[in-house]
Every structure is written in structure tokens, then in C-alpha cells.
């Protein structure tokens, strides 16, 4: 597997990025704050009104470094993309299958199967690790409901039915999410999933984690030559990276939810990391976001054995591994897309 390089995150607004020699130079009001060799990075991600010089954009496009602009709240705005990988055959196959309901469902069901399998093992792990803190029979019951759903998914070739099964499983899983929050219950609680804007601290963290994950998955797909905007489970919608959302399904629980739970349960986030607006919208402070992103980056450096490839890789390369596997399936090398399954 390729080497996982760093991502440079710019979280302060009004920062300007430029290129000097082989270095990214970070300046604020003509004051140089830092400079780093460009070849250390595989992505640069900016939050807020950061600008970048055309020369830097050129270098990023050329070196295949993903330069992404996000709004302050983490919503995707734009990305600098170089010459798209010339793999037109792969993309045509991707499009052709996306036009076919049954073929789409065959791929989509493996995303969903893995999403639910990974949620199930999150519950099982919790029941095993904290039997005195959670309602074990309830966890076991939902876990077996999820197994039933997984069995049904394996034989489904209908997209609507897949979406239905996925929705039911998600409801059952999120019903237990609050119980998995074991610390600082007064400030971290989960009633339901809400967004745009999130109205509690947990949802604010989930939203940010999903944004970071989506950006990783999008660039992984584009790197192997796939079109991140044409999906199988998610329908085409202008401006929506549907395939990235598809692949993200199987990684949400295991990469984002567990990470958020860890940040809370290890008391790595405090109430001072959040501000609540008059209308109830919850935002992370700059410091809070910085802390979260730093921990996210460290998490990406941790390693695991990929369950299908049996190869030791960093967590940060999991989206990349899945993108390659999907591409190889589309090109006819494997009989089915092998999703990421965690235990």
C-alpha cells in the first residue's frame, strides 16, 4: 500500500498560502507563520476564508496533493484537482453500472452490509467492554436485529428495499448511541441525529467527523480514477459526491462514530470547546476544532490489518484501499466488491 503522508489543516481564517521553492508558506497579514516542505503532504485542507496562490494550486495539482477549501463550519466549498486520471474506461464502466438498478444494488448492498456489520460490532464491543455501564440485553437484542438485517441485505437486489433496511438498522443503532456516551453526560447527550446546523455537542462532533471522512474518501476515489460524484446507493444530485457518500457508509461507524465516542469518553473535549448560538445551533470553537482535527490526524496514523487484503496499513489509508478494491471490482478482477468489515 502507498505511504500515508500528512494533511495540512488551516483552521484559522484569513491565512494565505503560497509556494516558495518547494515549501508551502503560511502567512497572516504579511507575517510569515510557518513553512513546510510540500512533499510531506498528501492533502491541504483549509477552513474559513483562507486564500492560496495560483502557483501553490499549480504545484498541488501537479503533485496530486488534494487542496480543499471548506467553510468555517466545515462545509465543502471547492477543491483543486489536477488533470483527471486518464482512466476513462474505468469511469465509463462506473457510469454504465450506475444506470442499471440491479447492478447498482449489487454494489450498494455490500456498502450497506458493511455499514450495519460495523455498527453491530461497535455494539458488541461496547457490551463486552462496559457490561456494567450499559443495558447489555438491549445491546444484544439490537445486535441480533442487525444480524437479521444483514442476512436480508445479502440477497436483496432492490435499491429501495436496501434503503429501507438501512434506515431501520440506523434507527435501532442510534437508539443506543446515548448509552455509549459514558462521561460528562451533562454536556454530551444524544437524542437524535441532527445537522445543518447541529443542535447539540455530540451532533456537532459527528458532523465534523463525517466532513473529515467525506473529504478523505472523495480524494481516495479520485486518486484511483473514479468519479466521486456518481454513486450507486446515493442518487446523482448536482454537487453531491454520491460515490463518496456510498463508500463512506461502511466507514461512518467504525471511523467517525467510534472516534467521536473516544473523544468524549476519554474526556478529550470539554464544554469550553463549544459555543451555542441564540437559535440553538452548536459550533465548535477554533481551539475545539483544532484539538479534534489533531486527534483525527493521529488516529489516521494508527495501524490495523485490513480484513480483506490481510495487509497492515494505517487507518488513514482505509478509504484508499476501499477505492482501489472498488476500481478493481469494476474492471472485472473480483466477483464482488469487498467492503471494509471490522470486528
Amino acid at each position: 500500500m502507498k505511504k500515508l503522508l500528512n494533511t495540512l489543516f488551516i483552521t484559522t481564517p484569513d491565512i494565505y498560502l503560497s509556494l516558495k521553492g518547494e515549501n508551502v508558506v503560511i502567512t497572516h497579514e504579511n507575517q510569515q507563520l510557518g513553512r513546510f516542505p510540500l512533499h510531506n503532504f498528501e492533502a491541504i485542507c483549509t477552513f474559513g476564508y483562507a486564500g492560496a496562490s495560483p502557483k501553490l494550486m499549480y504545484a498541488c495539482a501537479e503533485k496530486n496533493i488534494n487542496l480543499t477549501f471548506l467553510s468555517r463550519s466545515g462545509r465543502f466549498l471547492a477543491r483543486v484537482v489536477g488533470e483527471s486520471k486518464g482512466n476513462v474506461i474505468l469511469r465509463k464502466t462506473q457510469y454504465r453500472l450506475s444506470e442499471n438498478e440491479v447492478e447498482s444494488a449489487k454494489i450498494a448492498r455490500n456498502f450497506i452490509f458493511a455499514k450495519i456489520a460495523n455498527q453491530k460490532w461497535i455494539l458488541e464491543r461496547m457490551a463486552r467492554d462496559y457490561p456494567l455501564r450499559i443495558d447489555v440485553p438491549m445491546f444484544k437484542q439490537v445486535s441480533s436485529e442487525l444480524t437479521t438485517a444483514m442476512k436480508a441485505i445479502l440477497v436483496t437486489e432492490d435499491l429501495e428495499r436496501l434503503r429501507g433496511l438501512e434506515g431501520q438498522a440506523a434507527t435501532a443503532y442510534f437508539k443506543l448511541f446515548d448509552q455509549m456516551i459514558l462521561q460528562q453526560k451533562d454536556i454530551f447527550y444524544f437524542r437524535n441525529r441532527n445537522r445543518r446546523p447541529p443542535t447539540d455537542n455530540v451532533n456537532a462532533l459527528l458532523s465534523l467527523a463525517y466532513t473529515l471522512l467525506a473529504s478523505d474518501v472523495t480524494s481516495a476515489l479520485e486518486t484511483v480514477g473514479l468519479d466521486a460524484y456518481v454513486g450507486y446507493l446515493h442518487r446523482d444530485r448536482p454537487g453531491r459526491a454520491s460515490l463518496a457518500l456510498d463508500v463512506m457508509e461502511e466507514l461512518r461507524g467504525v471511523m467517525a462514530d467510534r472516534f467521536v465516542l473516544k473523544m468524549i469518553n476519554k474526556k478529550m473535549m470539554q464544554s469550553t470547546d463549544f459555543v451555542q448560538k441564540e437559535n440553538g445551533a452548536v459550533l465548535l470553537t477554533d481551539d475545539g476544532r483544532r484539538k479534534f482535527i489533531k486527534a483525527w490526524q493521529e488516529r489516521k496514523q494508527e495501524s490495523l490489518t485490513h480484513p480483506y487484503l490481510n495487509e497492515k496499513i494505517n487507518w488513514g489509508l482505509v478509504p484508499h484501499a476501499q477505492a482501489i478494491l472498488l476500481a478493481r471490482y469494476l474492471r472485472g478482477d473480483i466477483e464482488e466488491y469487498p467492503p471494509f468489515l471490522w470486528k
Partner: protein
Amino acid sequence: MVNDDVDYLMLSGIQHFRFCSRQWALIHIEQQWAENVLTIEGQHVHEKADQPFLREKRGNKLIVRAMPIRSHSLKTNGICDVVEFYEHKDGVPIHGETGTYLPIPVEYKRGKPKRGQEDVVQLVAQVMCLEEMLLCDIPAAYLFYDEIKRRVKVDITDEMRNEVQSMFKQMHHYFDRRHTPKVKTGKHCVSCSLQNLCMPELMSSTTVRSYMERYL
């Protein structure tokens, strides 16, 4: 259409094809590429040869670098690192020179002579292009290896010409179908820079279905 070179394949691809037909397909059909230390070394070696505007004349020898070549019968085009033209009475007249010359291509390679035939078939393909373009016979050519800093003479036989011809035929067949052949794993996988894209082990593992069922 004689000059329709849309379907022409890159000549240098024949070395990839000889090394591994899947590697060739990944590079030339799927347009995938990854560098490793060997490919970087190769680029470095070619930098020296790649000087299209340098033309040297030494005695009875004219040295031309980075010469574009093609063959309509093989449907391929590419570049010769170096072509040396020797003044020779059995040679052919060439553009911009008086007298007759015999062309001899020299292909620059990193490392030392390889056990496989991948460098040789590429050189033979270059010979066939030059023979077709100049209407001449080239009995021998050279491979220059960077590590030993010496050239190795390769005699061009009809047997080799036939083999190159049939290899191009097969390459065109795959290319027309946009087909990437399945991997034949072997020792050569270790030195392949596309290992992580190809995933040679992929095809030997269990079925995806049984992998998924383990999680039920």
C-alpha cells in the same frame, strides 16, 4: 487512412508487456502509473539520452538522439534514445546528409543486463520501425546498461522479428477490447511498481461472499 495513428500503441509498452501483460494493460489501457526506485532510476538514465536537438558527427558516424519512430505494420510509435548512422556503402541515403548510412539504434537502460527478454524485444521493435521507415536491413543493435556502463550487442534474428510482431498483435487485441488480463503472479511482482494498484494477491484470496458471511 494511413496516417490515422489513433490506434497506435506506445512502442516502449512492449517491454511492459513482455514483463507482465497485466502491468502493460494497467499502464496503457487503464492509464495507471506509480513510481518506485527502479522507475526513477530509469528516468534518470533517459534524461541523458533525451536531447532531441543535439546532433553529433564524429568521423564517419552521425549520432542522433531522441528520434521519433513508428511502424505502420506494427501500428506503434515511439522514440529511439540514440540512433547511430554509420557511413557505409551498403547503407541508405538519409535526409540532410550525403552518402549512404547504416542505422544502429542504442537503447539506454538502468541497471545491468536482465535475465528476461523485455529490453531485447523493445530494441527489436525499434529496429523494425527503423527498417520500415528507412527501407533498410539492420542486423544488430545495442542496449546500453547504466550500471556496467557498457553496451551489449543484440543480433536481430527473423525469429525475434516474428515474436515482436505477434506480441503487438496480442497487445492490439487486448487494447481493442480494453481488456486487462488477470495476473500471473511470480518473482517479477516484487520489482513491479504497480503492485499496489494491481494487487496480485487479490485473485488468490477467498470469495468476497464467504469473507462477508464470516461477519454474520
